[in-house]
């Protein structure tokens, strides 16, 4: 794979104090290519679609809809969906409704700590355009300015059924290899970072949270 294109040297991490810089990695993320053999990639995409591990991080009010999803009535386990308590092991990040600036910081951290391929699903209208909080001093209006979104599920609030429809849609996208948010994020890393830093004024973390 073409590493040179992205290896632009270490990240500046200028939000950190000199002391902290030794504690965080300053490596620049690199996108991954599909497997060289198409069949393998296809197979792996099918596997990925059928093993969706959600990050159990309720970022907004919509997260309340995630719990019924896993219970007896909807039983998303059937579709290979599971909750994981740590971002390291999760592949799907559900933004549960409106995201404030303060939460965005945590979302970015958690997202960057997830290992690729990883997918972002936005739940509800708020991440799309701010919804009913569009004119708040604290609510993000266009979530895809900050992180790559693979799927939006609209509604306020979307019910678990919609969520399940969304999961099926996500599966379809993954199987087709169209859910490439993780790579998009890295390919447009500078743009995303600029957007993130535009709203997060006290940037006290490394530029990429490995």
């Amino acid at each position, binding site marked *: 794979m073409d590493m040179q294109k992205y290896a632009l040297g270490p990240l500046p991490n200028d939000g950190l104090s000199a002391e902290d810089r030794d504690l965080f990695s300053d490596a620049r993320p690199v996108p991954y290519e599909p497997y060289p053999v198409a069949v393998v990639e296809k197979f792996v995409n099918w596997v990925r679609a059928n093993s969706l591990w959600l990050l159990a991080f309720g970022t907004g009010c919509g997260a309340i809809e995630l719990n019924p999803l896993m219970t007896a009535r909807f039983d998303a386990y059937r579709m290979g969906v599971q909750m994981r308590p740590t971002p390291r092991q999760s592949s799907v990040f559900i933004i549960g409704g409106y995201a404030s*600036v*303060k939460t965005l*910081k945590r979302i970015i951290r958690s997202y960057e700590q997830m290992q690729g391929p990883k997918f972002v699903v936005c739940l509800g209208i708020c991440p*799309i*355009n*701010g919804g009913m909080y*569009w*004119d*708040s*001093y*604290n*609510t*993000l*209006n*266009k979530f895809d*300015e900050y992180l790559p979104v693979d799927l939006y599920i609209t509604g306020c609030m979307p019910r678990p059924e919609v969520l399940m429809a969304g999961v099926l849609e996500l599966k379809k996208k993954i199987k087709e290899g169209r859910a490439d948010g993780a790579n998009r994020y890295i390919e447009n890393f500078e743009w995303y970072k600029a957007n993130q830093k*535009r*709203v*997060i*004024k*006290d*940037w006290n973390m490394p530029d990429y949270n490995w």
Partner: protein
Amino acid sequence: MANAIQLLADFGRNFTLSDIREQRVDLAFCKAPKEQAVRLIRELRDDAGYTHLVFLTNTDYIEQGIFTLTYMLHNYDARHTLGVHVDLDRNAAEMESIHNLWAQAATYQRELREMYGIRFPGSPRLDEDFCLEGWDQIPPMLKEFDTAAFSLERFHSREGRGSVDPSEHMKTLLYPTHSDEPSSGGS
């Protein structure tokens, strides 16, 4: 509860209370001058049984150039809530801290400092970020702060967003023929 009024009247001998108002049987308000407020609250807590600080909040009366703090106190024995209003000058908003009376008041005071810029000298961690992190504008709850403009400027509203008056929308949806008629109740 007539007792509360009586109580405030009694207190009124030592304090210049005004606007004594009984809103419900279990809820009353009064207004105290800035200088006397904390002493009043202390005595309410220690002598009158208002041991619980329900909340501390602020209202911005930009037209009158004042902030009005509301200290909401509760008496568990009498099951009575008492609000003490205190007017502050909007241009020099500063108030005596009550974190010595209730430790949790410090948190309210941090919030008021952050959201309205009211100072509470001596209150712990007053200037640390509370709800907002890295806020670089005037305090956002001040009425002169235009949140919509700020949001548009910073959070980039998405194209294609429209706004519909719910009642109009429902009328067009349900009674398309009546849409042009003047409504009787509408203004």
